[in-house]
């Protein structure tokens, strides 16, 4: 692993992994979600030191345009969630 993460990142990582296991199936069923992992919170495209549950979406849409079931919470079981706009992924041939 690499430096420049929060001091207690190992614990944050472990907790985010646990929550990920329970929440991944439900998150992937939500509109626009393309991936779920454990990673660094991004701010304006730059990474921060915070280790969080990362939910990747093909595009960010205003909350008001989402059905309640498709809203991604800002935290799950106390683990912060960072929604990152990645576009849709496709093979690179």
């Amino acid at each position, binding site marked *: *692993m*690499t*430096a*420049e*993460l929060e001091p207690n*990142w190992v614990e944050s*990582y472990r907790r985010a*992994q646990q929550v*990920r296991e329970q929440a*991944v*199936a439900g998150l*992937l069923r939500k509109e626009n979600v*393309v*991936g*779920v*992992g*454990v*990673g*660094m919170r*991004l701010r304006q495209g730059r*990474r921060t030191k915070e*280790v969080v549950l*990362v939910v*990747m979406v093909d595009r960010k849409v205003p909350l008001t345009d989402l059905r309640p079931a498709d809203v991604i919470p800002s935290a799950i079981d106390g683990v912060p969630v960072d929604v*990152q*706009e*990645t*576009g*849709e*992924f*496709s*093979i*690179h*041939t």
Partner: protein
Amino acid sequence: MDDLVRVAQAKAAYQAVLLAKPNVVGVGTGYRTVGKRLTDQVCLVTLVRRKVPLAGLEVQALVPTEIDGVPTDVLEVGDLRIQKPRDLRWRPAPGGVSISHFRVTAGTFGCLVRDRRTGVRLILSNNHVLANSNQAVLGDAVLQPGALDGGSAEDDQLGRLERFIPIQFNDQPGECSVARSVAAVGNALARLVGSRHRLAVRRVDPQAANWVDAAVARPLQDAWVDEEILEIGRVIGTAAPGLGMPVRKSGRTTGLTRGEIQVLDTTVTIGYGDRQARFDGQIVTSAMSSPGDSGSLLVAGDRLAAVGLLFAGSEQATIHNPIAQVLEALEVSL
């Protein structure tokens, strides 16, 4: 203008002498840099591989500080090598060049690996590059350069498909007879009430866990492939991925690019033309690839250690299989 003429004359007169000195790789005209600042003083610039302290140089290796009244400057540029384009035919072929199954457009030759049982050297890339996303037959021709880059089965076959890890796609037509009859009943009801919706049986298997998009091809001749990866070198061993880890890759389309690992243990949905497949345990980096880079080896930024196998991406990010899973699944080693 006078200055420029004098520099040009000095360059013409002394270029051969300067180029004959060890360590000198080029001579040109330019502006003098003092410290790190560019001045407006025109000078004769000598390009050297490495700057060496004066004390460490033979007298005849010295570049004089001025020639015929024209100031000189020494610029360190490393080794200048003109890179042959990656989409051309390479023999021996190194990692980082164009390659594909004869029915696929083009991807990248990741690197050479060894069969754990036979010790034979094999070409590592993706299933969708070497095995046409499960649709190939073992022994099929693998071309270098790839088909999109003009590779032909007659002239440019580099190897044969040796083996691949099948990809489970999300919606393959269902096999389950109970589901089929439920759909049939449902469709009958739908017709009865004039609904335009029909139920199709799709086995959307949320458990369809792919870990790798990987395949190996066997070179027709062992001498036709090279251990080097272009602009990276020879990779020795693997490194575990870590958050924030700097990484690089050498690929057909975008060449040598750098990035950093941003997300780990990622479950992600990937588009394969009109199909989709779900992958678990993937590495996500900042954007470092474009179409044609599939199959590139992801290498640690500061060491010659393999970290992953690039296979997919978007404008904002690139997705890689963890290298340990790739080597394990294919029963090969670096």
